[in-house]
């Protein structure tokens, strides 16, 4: 019997090696797998490359991971925030490499990795600093930039519910990067609020089929977080 559920966060994070590339889902407070990130900190892997839309906010989650000094590089679209002080300090002191990628290109590169696409041409960023040094091509009179897939060793994501096969459903805008990162990582670990019986999830509404998920762990549902407005 295939059972992808793990009994603890520790078990869910077992085996992450130094030097791993780790995708972390979430946009704003929605879909942040903070329990998994905390467990990754406890697990101790270092020299990591992190892929996330932001670069940590406040002192928890990705910010706390960055603060350990175990992240070598971050690939993201929007590192600067009113409360991104952990990132800001590391970046300004040259202790953290940054690869800045437009948000749509970031997620399409992740999808390309998951979908076996070798590279793709996007119109985004053509003629801007973020396309500097990149191959370009005119197609039907329009200018495009060549972008390559973004693979990961692990994806840490948050979903609403899972079954033992690893099928996932999400909740509202907490879906964001989760389904795509799950496709691009060799090992996807999902923290979920609920684990349900096989067959309980509507097969028409499963967003991430279990083929993309290796480990599932249930976490206590957090109290409603305070939302700070005005971030991106």
């Amino acid at each position, binding site marked *: 019997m295939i059972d992808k559920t793990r009994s603890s966060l520790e078990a869910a994070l077992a085996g992450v090696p130094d030097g791993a590339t780790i995708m972390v889902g979430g946009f704003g407070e929605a879909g942040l797998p903070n329990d998994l990130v905390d467990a990754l900190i406890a697990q101790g892997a270092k020299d990591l490359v992190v892929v996330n839309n932001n670069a940590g906010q406040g002192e928890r989650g990705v910010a706390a991971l960055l603060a350990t000094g175990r992240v070598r590089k971050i690939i993201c679209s929007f590192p600067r925030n009113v409360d991104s002080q952990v990132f800001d300090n590391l970046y300004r002191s040259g202790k953290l490499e940054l690869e800045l990628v437009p948000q*749509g290109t970031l997620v399409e590169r992740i999808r390309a990795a998951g979908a076996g696409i070798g590279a793709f041409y996007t119109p985004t960023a053509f003629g801007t600093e973020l396309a500097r040094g990149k191959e370009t091509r005119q197609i039907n009179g329009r200018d495009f930039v060549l972008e390559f897939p973004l693979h990961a060793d692990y994806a840490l994501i948050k979903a609403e519910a899972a079954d033992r096969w690893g099928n996932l459903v999400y909740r509202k*805008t*907490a879906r964001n*990067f989760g389904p795509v990162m799950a496709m691009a990582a060799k090992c996807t670990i999902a923290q979920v609020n609920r684990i349900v019986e096989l067959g309980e999830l509507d097969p028409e509404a499963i967003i991430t089929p279990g083929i993309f998920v290796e480990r599932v762990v249930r976490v206590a549902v957090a109290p*409603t977080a305070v*939302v700070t407005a005005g971030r991106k």
Partner: protein
Amino acid sequence: MSYAKRSREELAQRLASDIHDGAYVNLGIGLPTLVADHLPAGREIFLHSENGILGMGPAPAPGDVDTDLLNAGKQPVTLLPGGAFFHHADSFAMIRGGHLDICVLGAFQVSASGDIANWSTGEPEAIPAVGGAMDLAVGAKNIWVMMELLTRKGESKIVPRCTYPLTGVGVVKRVYSDLAVIDITPGGLVAYDLVPGLSMEELQSLTGLQLLTQAR
């Protein structure tokens, strides 16, 4: 002559009045967000949020905040009946694929040829951050910029050529400003709906640019 600039609310209202019934619209972070509060009654306008919403509704009542239901500015919102959720790749497929009718963006500068600079001041010590700005700039059928026409120092933000780092090249079709609406056309900049009391000559002098008055 004397004139009063449009307030942010008036500007949002002026822009919103041009959004057609049934339009699919993305409102950028900052000033453009105000447009949501001024959508004309009697029109159904579909608001898109790049983090995976179509059919976004207004902010929730204080007691009804759901931290899993945020807009691209990471503020709590609601979903209209008929709205839908989707993941980021699908959301940016909508954007990049040209499915949005209108995207309203703020800007530091817009050039006479429709270039837009809105993501970086280019200052050496600044931490860069782009978010979805570059995707939105190339994606929507109509890129409208909403901004104050002049900087605090009184310099025009519509310029012959952007000095700030570009977000997109040749993409802006129209600028809604606190002083006038300005279309960016192959034939040049066409200004209209100047605030009462502002003459075309004064507007030209403020911007330092040649402005046309031809009928839209």
